[in-house]
């Protein structure tokens, strides 16, 4: 194997990768990709081999993967479905299996492709029609139907819907205000912990440090636990206490630093 050959191969591979990237960007979803692939069969969409098409698609996805091209989830969902369809088409039908046969699913896929193709053609025919302001024109100088003036207020449906959307989404941006009665502030936890510290020469679980009335209701306990925990971190940082935890997620224990 000569270097030159290797060189050309990598160039070819790079070209191929580039072409693929461009292609993936150019496709509007997996159905569009399938439609393009189906054209290589050069036959009427009604007589297309869905099995061959599924293999082509899976090959395309495989190639994209080997070239580490990121594909949108839609493409992978379609790949999974086509792999399933392929197995249904290849394996003898299982009489116990419920649901549509592989042939029915394949026929539907062919129908979807044909319909998309038909809509594409219809869109092209529509845009190819004579258009107002391009191929035919309205009166260039419409005559003012003047004499009495009357103000008519205009509003489009879009204006109306936007106004409503604006009103109804205003609340999204209202600053989040919470109910203070169930909040145990950090400052209070720090003050309480500091005042109780002299008596804490033994390891005590953090739970036991929660103030009275803050241990029952989950939301109150959560708030007190959070602020008390934050306070222990502050005190540990100051070197006033020691913290101990036997295992991940095990209860946290604390005590006054003995050498103080």
């Amino acid at each position, binding site marked *: 194997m000569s270097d030159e050959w290797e060189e050309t191969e990598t160039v070819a591979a790079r070209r191929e990768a580039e072409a693929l990237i461009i292609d993936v960007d150019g496709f509007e979803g997996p159905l569009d990709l399938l439609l393009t692939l189906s054209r290589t069969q050069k036959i009427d969409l009604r007589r297309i081999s869905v099995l061959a098409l599924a293999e082509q698609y899976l090959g395309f996805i495989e190639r994209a993967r080997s070239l580490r091209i990121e594909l949108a989830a839609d493409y992978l969902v379609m790949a999974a479905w086509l792999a399933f369809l392929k197995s249904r088409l290849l394996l003898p039908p299982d009489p116990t299996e419920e649901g549509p046969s592989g042939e029915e*699913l394949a*026929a539907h896929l062919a129908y979807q492709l044909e319909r*998309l193709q038909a809509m*594409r053609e219809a869109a092209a025919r529509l845009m190819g029609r004579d258009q107002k302001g391009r*191929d*035919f024109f*309205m009166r260039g100088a419409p005559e003012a*139907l003047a004499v009495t003036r009357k103000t008519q207020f205009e509003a489009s*449906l*879009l204006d109306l819907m936007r106004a409503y959307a604006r009103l109804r989404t205003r609340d999204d941006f209202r600053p989040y205000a919470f109910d203070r009665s169930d909040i145990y502030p950090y400052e209070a936890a720090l003050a309480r912990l500091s005042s109780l510290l002299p008596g804490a020469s033994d390891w005590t679980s953090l739970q036991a440090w929660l103030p009275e009335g803050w241990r029952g209701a989950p939301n109150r306990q959560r708030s007190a636990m959070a602020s008390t925990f934050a306070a222990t971190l502050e005190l540990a940082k100051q070197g006033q206490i020691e913290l101990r935890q036997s295992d991940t997620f095990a209860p946290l224990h604390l005590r006054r630093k003995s050498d103080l």
Partner: protein
Amino acid sequence: MPDDALSPSAKDAPGLFPAPPMAEQERMVEAILFACAAPQSLSQITARLPQGCDAAEALAHLRTRYQGRGVHLVRVGDAYAMRTAPDLGWLMQSERVETRKLSRAAIETLAIIAYHQPVTRAEIEEIRGVAVSRGTVDQLMEMEWIRLGRRRMTPGRPVTFVVTDEFLDHFGLESARDLPGLKELREAGLLDSRPMPGMAAREDDEEDDSPQTGQSELFED
């Protein structure tokens, strides 16, 4: 223009006077349609004419008179307008209005709405096999080519989209059933809402609840 924008003289005209001769009525309709850029409905035209006039007949005469001329009388939905003959468009190159370039997605979405109307967003997405991006529907609505139709009487009662008279006017269509190739597409079954095998037959519910509105029904009269 409001339908009741009766000119004072027409309003005052007592029914005692006979309606003007048809040739005169035709002149009047001609003047009205030349004066207005926007299509005028039969009732709008009638409201401007003296009492006893037959706008429909005058329109028919006028239409014949302008056949083969440089300017045509065209029908747009339920309204009428004068438009230049399409084969002479090249003469008016300096009058051309540049329309916003539509994306491929927008053009396809527009075609799907026109051919499948009334159609829901989910159905558009099923046909294209890809989500309808934000802004596509918005753009088509802003251009006044599509509008909201009746809600579908299916779970979730989704909104539907239909094309507007402005769409018809822009593409020189008398009605949505004059869309090119509509009949062939329908006969080929390509406008059916065919569910994926094994999925709940949503089709049935639809047909119970939304009669006479679908494009497919346009032909069944």
